[in-house]
C-alpha cells in the first residue's frame, strides 16, 4: 500500500451501494427476456413449437433463429485474418445468434422469450416444445482431432479449423540434432471460466424518431462493444449508444458483444419497448466464452554446458463449437511473441492447432495465451535442470537474455523493448530466502510435511490493439473544470482516479478539477480507441492522456501570448500558468479556458493520441508451499513477486492488479476446472456449487517488489500490469508444488492441484515405490 493512498474516486459510490451495474439501470416500460438454451451438447433441432409459449400469461413475443436470420444478424468472423501453416486461411463456422438447425454446445441460445416479467418469460421458455435428435458429441480436443471423431461441420473435416506455424523449422531441427540433451514435456492448461462477479446481462432499447439504439451492458470498452454490435447487425456504429457506468469485472471475456445482445436489439426495435435480460450465474458459466483449454507440448534442446539451443512448441487449443473474435488470435500469433520466454534461444519452431468441439467457445481470459506459454517454458526449464543436474536458478542465469541486449529481436516477430531478467531473479531468491530453503524442507519433513520452493521467470507482450492509435478527448469547461473522455472501459482498474492524476500532473493542476468519464455515450463522439484488453490501458490511454495534456499546454501558449502581448517564445508553462520568463506577469491555463469557453469557443480542447505499440513486462516470482501427504492439501506459505511493469504511476493500483492476477492464476493452479462429461458432452460444473472459485486465504500473503525498467516505447515509460500476475503464478506455483512432490517420487502433475489429485498421485507413487 502506498503511504499516500486514500482511496479511489470510484470508491464512494461503490462502497455505499450507489454504483450502477447493468441490471441496476431502471428504464420505463421494460419487458423481460429469458433465453431457451441447449440442454445437450450436440443435436439436430427436428422441430420447435413456440405457440405454447405465446399462450403463457404475460408472454409478449418469442424470437427464434429464423427471426434473427431474417433481420440479417450474423456472428462476425474472428480477428485472425492472417495466413497459417502453408498459407492456409482459418475456417470459420457460421454461428446463428439463435440456433436454427443444430445445437453444438450446452448453453447455446435457441430462442428468446419476451414477457412482462422475468418469471413469465421463464414460464414461456419452459413451454416451448422442442424436439431434438441427439448426435454423437465430442468435448475433448484430442478426441476431436482423432480419426473417426464426431464431426461438427462437414466443411471443416477433422474438426481442425486452423494451423499456425512460426519460427524456423529447419534451423530448429538442426539445433536439436546438435543437442547434448533434449527435455520433453506435455502439459494441460485446463478450461476455466472467467466468472466476473457481475453475471452477464444486457438491456436494449430503440428510439424510433432518432433511429438510435441504446444498449446497456458490461464491456471492456465502448468502442469495441459498438463496433462488435455493428458487425453483428449491420447497423452503423454511430446509431448504437453503449452505456456501461460500472462494470463488474471483465478479465478478457467481456470485451465484445455476445449473441444475445443483437437479439435484444432486434426485439427492442420490433416491440418498441426496452427489453432487459438478466443472466443467471449458470448462464454466465455455460455461455460466457471460456478461457485456456490448451494441450501444451514442448521440447527444449541443450548443449553440454546447459545452453539452450532450440525450442519446439506444439499447442492444441480446444476452441469450442464456434470461434469468438479473440479466441483464435490469442492461441496463435499472440503467444508466439514470447515463445523463447526470457531466454536467448537461437532456434524456435511452433505449430499451434485450433480444434472444434461441442463446448462453449474460448476467448481471451486474463493472460490470453501468455500464462500458457510461460507455463510450458518454465516447467520445461525446471525439468531440464533436473535431468541435466544443473541447478535450476543457475540454468536460468546461463540462458537469460542479458540486459545489454535490448531492444532484443526474437526469432519470432517480436522486439522485447527492455528488461533485466537476471536482476529480477536475483532479487526474488534473496527476498524468498531461497538459500536456506533446504533447512526449512528438512524441518517440514520432520513434521511429516512435503515442502517445496519454485520460481517462474516470465515475459509477456502488453499493449497493441484493434486500431492504429488510441485517442482521448480533453475538454475545458467554462467554470474552470476539465472533463477527460476515454473509451477505456474500466472494470475496477481505477481509471477515473489515475487518468485524472496523469492529466493533473502534466498540467500542473490539482486533480480535483479533472473529471474522467470512461465511456460516456453523451460525450464527444469524435475520437476512437480500443478498450481495456491486453494489459494496455496505461500504455495507450494513459500515454494519450499525457500527450493530450502536453498538446493542450502547447495550444494555450498562443492564447497566453496574445493575452499577455508577448511572443510565445517568451513564455514558460509551470504550475498551471503561463509566465513571461523572468517576470511575474502570468495567466492561468484555467483562466484562459474560462475566457475562451465563455465566448463559445474552446480552442484548448484537445484529442490526445498514442500510436499502437507494444512493451514487454516481465517478472520473477517465487512461491513456497507445504503439502500434507495425508490430505493432499497444499498450503501456500509465501509468494514473492519481483516485477518489471515499467514506470509505476500509482503503486497501490498496480499492487491491486498484481494481487488479483496472481489469485486468478492460483485459482487455475489449485482448483478451477470447467468440466464436460466426456461421454455425453454435458457441462458438469454449471454453477458455483461445482465450479471452484478461489476464496480468501488461498494465497494468504503476497510480497511484491518493484524492479522497473522504463519502456522506451511510450512517454510514460509504462509496460502494462493487468495480466503479469496470472502469467507468473501458473509456472511459479506448479514448480513449487512439483518441487515438494519430487522427493516423494512424483515426477509429473497437471493443474488443477486439488487435494484429491495430489493425494492420489502420492498414493500412486507410494505403491510404485513398494512394487519396486
Amino acid at each position, binding site marked *: 500500500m502506498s503511504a499516500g493512498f486514500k482511496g479511489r474516486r470510484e470508491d464512494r459510490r461503490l*462502497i455505499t451501494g450507489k454504483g450502477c451495474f447493468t441490471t441496476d439501470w431502471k428504464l420505463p416500460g421494460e419487458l423481460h427476456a429469458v433465453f431457451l438454451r441447449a440442454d445437450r451438447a450436440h443435436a439436430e433441432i427436428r422441430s420447435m413449437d413456440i405457440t405454447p409459449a405465446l399462450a403463457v400469461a404475460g408472454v409478449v413475443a418469442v424470437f427464434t433463429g429464423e427471426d434473427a436470420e431474417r433481420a440479417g444478424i450474423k456472428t462476425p468472423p474472428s480477428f485472425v485474418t492472417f495466413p497459417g501453416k502453408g498459407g492456409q486461411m482459418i475456417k470459420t463456422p457460421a454461428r446463428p445468434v439463435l440456433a436454427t438447425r443444430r445445437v453444438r454446445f450446452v448453453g447455446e441460445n435457441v430462442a428468446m422469450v419476451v414477457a412482462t416479467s422475468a418469471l413469465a418469460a421463464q414460464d414461456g421458455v419452459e413451454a416451448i416444445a422442442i424436439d431434438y435428435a441427439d448426435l454423437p458429441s465430442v468435448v475433448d480436443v484430442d478426441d476431436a482431432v482423432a480419426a473417426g471423431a464426431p464431426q461438427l461441420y462437414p466443411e471443416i473435416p477433422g474438426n481442425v479449423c486452423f494451423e499456425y506455424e512460426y519460427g524456423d523449422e529447419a534451423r530448429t531441427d538442426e539445433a536439436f540434432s546438435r543437442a547434448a540433451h533434449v527435455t520433453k514435456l506435455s502439459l494441460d492448461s485446463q478450461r476455466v471460466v472467467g466468472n466476473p462477479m457481475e453475471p452477464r446481462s444486457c438491456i436494449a432499447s430503440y428510439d424510433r424518431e432518432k433511429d438510435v439504439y441504446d444498449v446497456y451492458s458490461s464491456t471492456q470498452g465502448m468502442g469495441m462493444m459498438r463496433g462488435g454490435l455493428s458487425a453483428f447487425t449491420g447497423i452503423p456504429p454511430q446509431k448504437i449508444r453503449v452505456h456501461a457506468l460500472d462494470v463488474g469485472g471483465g478479465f478478457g471475456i467481456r470485451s465484445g458483444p455476445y449473441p444475445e445482445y443483437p437479439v435484444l436489439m432486434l426485439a427492442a426495435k420490433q416491440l418498441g419497448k426496452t427489453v432487459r435480460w438478466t443472466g443467471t450465474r449458470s448462464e454466465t458459466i455455460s455461455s460466457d466464452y471460456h478461457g485456456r483449454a490448451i494441450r501444451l507440448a514442448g521440447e527444449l534442446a541443450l548443449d553440454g554446458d546447459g545452453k539452450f539451443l532450440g525450442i519446439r512448441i506444439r499447442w492444441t487449443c480446444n476452441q469450442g463449437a464456434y470461434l469468438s473474435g479473440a479466441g483464435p488470435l490469442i492461441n496463435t500469433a499472440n503467444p508466439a511473441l514470447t515463445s523463447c520466454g526470457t531466454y536467448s534461444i537461437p532456434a524456435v519452431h511452433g505449430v499451434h492447432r485450433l480444434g472444434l468441439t461441442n463446448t462453449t467457445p474460448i476467448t481471451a481470459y486474463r493472460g490470453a495465451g501468455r500464462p500458457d506459454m510461460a507455463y510450458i517454458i518454465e516447467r520445461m526449464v525446471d525439468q531440464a535442470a533436473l535431468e541435466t543436474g544443473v541447478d535450476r536458478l543457475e540454468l536460468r542465469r546461463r540462458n537469460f537474455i542479458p540486459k545489454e541486449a535490448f531492444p532484443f529481436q526474437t526469432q519470432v516477430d517480436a522486439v522485447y523493448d527492455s528488461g533485466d531478467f537476471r536482476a529480477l531473479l536475483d532479487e526474488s531468491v534473496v527476498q524468498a530466502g531461497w538459500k536456506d530453503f533446504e533447512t526449512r524442507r528438512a524441518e517440514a519433513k520432520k513434521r511429516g510435511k512435503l515442502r517445496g520452493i519454485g520460481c517462474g521467470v516470465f515475459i509477456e507482450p502488453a499493449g497493441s490493439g484493434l486500431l492504429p492509435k488510441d485517442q482521448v478527448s480533453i475538454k475545458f469547461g467554462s467554470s474552470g473544470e476539465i472533463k477527460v473522455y476515454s473509451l477505456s472501459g474500466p472494470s475496477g482498474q481505477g481509471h477515473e482516479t489515475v487518468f485524472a492524476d496523469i492529466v493533473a500532473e502534466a498540467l500542473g493542476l490539482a486533480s480535483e478539477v479533472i473529471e474522467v468519464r470512461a465511456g460516456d455515450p453523451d460525450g464527444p463522439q469524435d475520437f476512437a480507441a480500443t478498450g481495456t484488453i491486453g494489459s494496455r490501458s496505461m500504455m495507450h490511454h494513459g500515454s494519450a492522456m499525457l500527450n493530450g495534456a502536453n498538446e493542450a499546454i502547447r495550444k494555450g501558449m498562443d492564447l497566453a501570448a496574445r493575452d499577455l502581448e508577448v511572443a510565445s517564445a517568451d513564455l514558460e508553462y509551470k504550475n498551471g500558468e503561463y509566465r513571461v520568463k523572468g517576470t511575474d506577469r502570468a495567466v492561468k491555463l484555467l483562466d484562459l479556458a474560462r475566457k475562451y469557453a465563455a465566448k463559445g469557443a474552446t480552442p484548448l480542447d484537445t484529442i490526445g493520441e498514442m500510436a499502437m505499440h507494444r512493451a514487454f513486462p516481465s517478472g520473477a516470482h517465487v512461491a513456497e508451499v507445504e503439502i500434507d501427504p495425508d490430505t493432499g492439501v497444499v498450503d501456500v506459505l509465501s509468494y514473492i513477486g519481483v516485477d518489471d511493469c515499467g514506470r509505476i504511476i500509482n503503486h497501490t493500483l498496480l499492487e491491486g492488479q498484481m494481487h488479483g492476477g496472481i489469485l486468478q492464476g492460483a485459482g487455475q493452479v489449485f482448483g478451477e476446472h470447467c468440466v464436460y462429461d466426456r461421454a455425453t458432452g454435458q457441462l458438469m460444473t454449471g454453477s458455483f456449487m461445482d465450479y471452484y472459485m478461489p476464496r480468501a486465504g488461498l494465497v494468504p500473503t503476497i510480497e511484491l517488489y518493484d524492479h522497473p525498467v522504463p519502456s522506451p516505447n511510450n512517454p510514460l515509460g509504462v509496460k502494462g500490469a493487468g495480466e503479469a500476475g496470472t502469467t507468473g503464478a501458473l509456472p511459479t506455483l506448479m514448480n513449487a508444488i512439483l518441487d515438494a512432490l519430487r522427493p516423494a517420487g512424483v515426477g509429473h502433475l497437471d493443474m488443477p492441484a486439488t487435494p484429491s489429485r495430489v493425494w492420489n498421485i502420492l498414493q500412486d507413487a507410494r505403491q510404485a515405490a513398494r512394487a519396486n
Partner: protein
Amino acid sequence: MAKVELTVNGQKVSKDVEDRTLLANFLRDELGLTGTHIGCDTSQCGCCTVHVNGRAVKSCTMLVVQASGSEVVTIEGLAPKDGLHPVQKAFSECHALQCGFCTPGMIMAVAGMLKDNPKPNDEQIIHGLEGNLCRCTGYINIVKAVKQASGQAV
C-alpha cells in the same frame, strides 16, 4: 400473494408480494435498493448479503415473507446519511475493492463478522470471508481492510 411488513434502513415498508419473492429481489425490484447485488443462483457468492435483525444474511436465500416483521439493513443504510461505516472507510483506504460488484455484500458480511468478533485474527477473518467471493482483489487487501476496520495493525 402475501403481505409483508418490515423495516428497511429504518423505514417501515408494507407491500403485497408473490409468495416466492426472495428478499434480494424485493429489495432491488420493489424498493429500488440496487446496492444489494445478485451474483449467483446458489448462495455461494455473498454479493447479496444484508443484515436481518443485526445478523449478516444472504438475501437470495431468504423469502421476503420470512423477513416480515424484521429489521433489515442494506448497504445503503449501513452508515448514517452522508457518513461512512468504519468498514466502508477501510475498504476504500485499503484498496479492498476493484470492480465493486462484490463490495456491498463483502462490507455487510464483514460488518456482521465484527459484531460477533470485534478483533478477529487472520484465520478468523479468512473463515469469516468464506461465504463471499471476489474475483478482482485476490482478497489480500480485503483481509487488510478487516484488520484496519477492527483497529488492528495492518
